[in-house]
């Protein structure tokens, strides 16, 4: 295909990605090395605010931004090098904690805490999602034809449901005296609070994630199972391969590209975990990297947002995902080299 034709085909798509993804990304990259501040001045302000019946007036020195003649805030932008990265990573504390050998101290630093959770969340759920997805696919494939339709339908529900609503629906089952907590309490005879300590919250979050993503893995594996070569399978049977051996040596290799595809998608989506933190309200115990970024740039009541640190943490998040993706992508590169020309 000539370059010109190729460009015409991919042009619109590339243009949109450049405009709405690459451009903000570049600006985030630049901002992570800058700090933009308003020029502040200290002035005496008298503020009168209402009580229930009478007002109280206070006079105090306030630090407020200076305005120019058009009524716009005057800001200055400085290059600060890696300062914002340092503020996010807090390497001095990190090294001193390493020096003390104190895991707990490292976990006090937001970034490392978020990184720890994001990585365990991503890597622990990955095998579970693939395992559960494959198991469901095999079981459905095994089931009588007449019930397959409804079963596939029900299985897909957790995947299609809006994530915020999905996580809330599980949150409600367990929070406080939610019905499942009450059931667990009755069964174990103990008082259980699922949202009082981080490990139970984490377990629930893992459960939610597997519940939410396994259907996606399932439907793809199920599609893959439809194309398993029956002849190979039958010859394996003739060779006396047990069911388990057939699974290991015929079916799994056949599904290998799909496993990699799902791993890739799952790594990316789970690494971005955000809704699950909001849905389970786990901020006090566990946070994820995207939540950290979001928290930095959410303005407080006074309108401050830590854009520089948000940008730095976003860039760090991105570096992380590139590392995670290198492994699965090496194969794509080999395929590309193999299939091209």
């Amino acid at each position, binding site marked *: *295909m000539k370059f010109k034709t190729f460009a015409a085909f*991919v042009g619109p798509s590339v243009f949109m990605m450049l405009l709405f993804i690459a451009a903000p990304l570049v600006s985030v990259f630049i901002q992570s090395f800058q700090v933009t501040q308003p020029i502040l001045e200290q002035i005496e302000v008298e503020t009168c605010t209402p009580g229930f019946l009478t007002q109280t007036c206070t006079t105090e020195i306030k630090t407020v931004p200076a305005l120019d003649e058009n009524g716009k805030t005057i800001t200055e932008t400085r290059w600060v090098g890696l300062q914002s990265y340092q503020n996010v990573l807090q390497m001095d504390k990190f090294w001193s904690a390493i020096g003390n050998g104190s895991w707990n101290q490292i976990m006090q630093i937001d970034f490392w805490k978020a990184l720890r959770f994001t990585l365990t969340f991503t890597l622990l759920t990955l095998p579970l999602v693939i395992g559960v997805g494959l198991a469901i696919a095999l079981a459905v494939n095994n089931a009588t034809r007449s019930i397959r339709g409804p079963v596939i339908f029900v*299985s897909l529900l*957790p995947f299609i449901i809006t994530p915020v609503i999905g996580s809330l629906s599980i949150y409600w089952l367990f929070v406080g005296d939610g019905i499942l907590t*009450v059931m667990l309490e009755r069964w174990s005879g103990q008082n259980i609070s699922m949202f009082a300590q981080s490990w139970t919250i984490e377990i629930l979050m893992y459960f939610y994630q597997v519940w939410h993503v396994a259907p996606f893995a399932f439907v793809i594996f199920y*599609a893959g199972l439809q194309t398993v070569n029956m002849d190979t399978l*039958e010859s394996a049977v003739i060779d006396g391969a047990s069911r388990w051996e057939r699974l290991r040596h015929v079916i799994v290799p056949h599904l290998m590209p799909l496993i990699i595809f799902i791993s890739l998608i799952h790594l990316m989506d789970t690494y971005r975990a*955000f809704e699950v933190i909001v849905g389970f309200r786990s901020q006090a115990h566990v946070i994820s990297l995207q939540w950290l970024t979001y928290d930095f740039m959410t303005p407080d009541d006074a309108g401050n947002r830590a854009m520089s640190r948000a940008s730095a943490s976003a860039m760090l*998040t991105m570096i992380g995902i590139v590392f995670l993706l290198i492994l699965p992508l090496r194969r794509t590169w080999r395929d590309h080299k193999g299939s091209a020309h």
Partner: protein
Amino acid sequence: MSTPKAMQQSFALRFSSGAFLAIWCLLAAFPIFWITVMSFKSPVDAFADSPLDVIFGPVTRASGDGLSVVDIVLGLVVLFFAIRWAFTRLPALVRQYCPPGLIVLGWLVGALVYAIAFVLVFFGLLPLILGLLNGLLGPLGTPVLGLTTDHYVAVWAENEFYRNFLNSMLVTAGVVTISLTVGTLAGYGLARSGSDLAFWLLIFALVFRALPHSVLVAGYLPVFINSSEILRPIFGEGAPTLYGQPWAVIAVLVSINQPFTIWMLRSFFQNIPAELDEAARVDGCSHFQAFRRVIMPVMWPGVITTGLFSFLLGYNDFLVTSLLLDAQNQTMVPAIAGYFNRETTTTDQVEAVAAAVSITAPLFLLVMIFQRQIVSGLTAGAVKG
């Protein structure tokens, strides 16, 4: 297709695989079933400790809202036949009355008609008949199951949720159409080009896909709000404010969704033999003509599957729509989140649950209809990695 003897399974295996499937279905459906139950109860019942209270809703029943045994039996019967009909007769009808080229459109129309008919029968005709029956039957006709539709009425009529619904439809339809148009072209181009440029484009797309969305959205907000000022030198006085415009949000969502779309479609096109369009090219077609004449007729399974994922993304998006749309153009998901914030009451929460169930209903319908297409689309190769 008969199973060869050696492939036949022992009873234990069949049983355990069946049991596993049953447990999974229970797990998959239970949370959704539960919020549906909650949405029909008064706030006191919805958040009660005991599951039985939530199901039977004594407080709801006490206030005079409920279903009698007759209601339940008849309702279930109607429901059963409605679902059966949707799986059996509906597909046949659509195929019969729909011109072959427009099967997707036919399905959409069919689904819509079906949904409207269902709502009319189930919520219009049935209550009328049951009202009569309950009056006649005495004890069988007294409510045993507390159930109230107050929250749905509040959500849809008082809070004008239908506006959010229409906005959602607009945004989702826009996202799906544009995403697929742009994505199919790019996917085809990438699949047929073996150049390193194509490969690196895909890798960059992948990295883009992995980006945390909150980062992007933070970048858009100031630009969108001030766009009228920024664009004035170019467009003059008519420069639009992008903030709050559905089409601006559509553009953002399409872009965010592009990486996934082009990956899916590229893999799909790779599985369509290149000989097909090469033959067309030998006949003197340009690449575009070959695409239109040869590829377009066979690409639908993959496009439908990819479109479904685009639909989910547009429909379920929270971060982008909540920040970039104002109240008049708000879609459903951020509208619901509004119920959950700092100053809410328990009634608000149950209304939010009712709204959440309402959101899920169209997704139900969609999956019901396109289920076969998803599987066949994926089988046809959209997922070869």
